[in-house]
């Protein structure tokens, strides 16, 4: 039950000062670049940039350690899974096979496979700091305004802000419900048979749903009474004004995205092949 939630971390840094819109655009461009490219040189460059920005943000590793451990163990498992399912994927992509040593059957270790898996891991590593930074340096109040600014319907943007506003409340509801049901003997741990456990889960989910439906009713009334949705547009109290730093950042982000795509695709393949 002690699972932590990643959220905004208050610091004074140039990254925090940027508008949420800027960070959102950069995050989207960064993700696009990292998704499309498989060029090791580009990935390494992006990784260095990511880490630099991370240091500027004054967020320390300690702040996000629990997430990092999660991600690292995920990457480790993922790498093992890739190798088990497809030990020759690298050979297939790069077209050569430099065998380092044999294990058994089709399981050997080739330079190509190692290089391929290094690239996959790099791809994740490039996105992670950007995503993390977006989450921990953008004040949740600014989320909705930023989404609206990049063209998303303001009502939908607002629903994101509602979700962020009510996650802690619903977490508290959930805890209360789970505890009181446990006191009546409802058990979700592994001691019960699966079907029984699924049924038990519904005795916790159902009250949570019903009380959330009540909540939806109350909040809808409150929104309506305060004039939400009357106009085609709305302004945002928490929106940050765009400053020079924002324009420069977006411009730089755009250049990096274009350059990395050009480098990646100019030879017709998204893979950088050092073996030819």
């Amino acid at each position, binding site marked *: 039950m002690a699972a932590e939630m990643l959220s905004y971390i208050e610091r004074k840094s140039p990254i925090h000062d940027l508008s949420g819109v800027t960070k959102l655009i950069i995050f989207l461009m960064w993700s696009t670049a990292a998704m499309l490219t498989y060029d090791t040189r580009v990935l390494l460059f992006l990784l260095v940039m990511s880490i630099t920005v991370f240091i500027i943000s004054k967020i320390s590793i300690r702040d996000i350690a629990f997430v990092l451990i999660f991600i690292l163990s*995920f990457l480790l498992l993922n790498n093992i899974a890739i190798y088990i399912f497809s030990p020759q994927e690298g050979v297939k992509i790069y077209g050569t096979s430099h065998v380092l040593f044999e294990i058994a059957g089709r399981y050997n270790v080739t330079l190509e496979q190692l290089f391929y898996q290094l690239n*996959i891991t790099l791809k994740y590593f490039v996105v992670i700091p950007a995503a993390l930074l977006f*989450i921990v340096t953008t004040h949740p109040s600014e989320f909705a305004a930023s989404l609206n600014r990049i063209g998303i319907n303001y009502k939908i943007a607002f*629903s994101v802000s509602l979700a962020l506003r*009510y996650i802690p409340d619903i977490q508290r509801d959930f805890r209360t419900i789970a505890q009181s049901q446990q006191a009546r003997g409802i058990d979700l741990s592994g001691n019960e048979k699966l079907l029984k456990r699924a049924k038990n889960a*519904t005795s916790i*989910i159902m009250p949570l749903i*019903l009380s959330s439906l009540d909540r939806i009713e109350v909040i809808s009334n409150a929104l309506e009474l305060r004039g939400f*949705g009357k106009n085609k547009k709305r302004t945002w109290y928490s929106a940050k004004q765009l400053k020079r730093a924002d324009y420069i950042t977006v411009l730089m982000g755009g250049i990096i995205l274009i350059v990395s795509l050009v480098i990646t695709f100019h030879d017709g393949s998204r893979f950088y092949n050092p073996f030819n």
Partner: protein
Amino acid sequence: MGKISIKTIVAIGIGAAVFVILARFVALPTGIPNTTIQTAYAFLALMAVVFGPIAGGLIGFIGHTLTDATAYGSVWWSWVFVSLFIGFFIGLVANKINIDSGILGAKQIITFNIIQAIVQAIGWGLLAPALDVLIYAEPANKVFVQGAVAGISNIITVGVIGTILLIAYAKTRSQSNSLSKE
């Protein structure tokens, strides 16, 4: 898009918040490594049936994005997209089932389960792995096996828990003016 009611907007926001909590805290271990029963999808199916496709799709999308973001600090877009897809397409049967009438017969339950099974089979079995191959160039056989496992477990979850939730919800909507004390 301008015509979405305020109630739907609130349902999306609150629904996404509940999705996050269920995904984080009510994932039941099955005994098979790395496979859990994600009760959040049973909830998503219910919300989609009650509030329709737009709410369903967006609860899936926003809920899954926030779950990833708050737990891992990054977002796996390929799988997030599948949550949107599932919420939206299950929501399309909302009119057929009309759960707020309080009547949920065998016919509606079967319709719901056929649709949810098809939608999830396509979503987890085809879309998610295809996107993984496209974006991350992961080995095809690995992601298809992952997708199949997730698909089967989620189809069963929605089939069992989702159906129970639908029935329970429908009962709360039923007319109760024929009651007498005994």
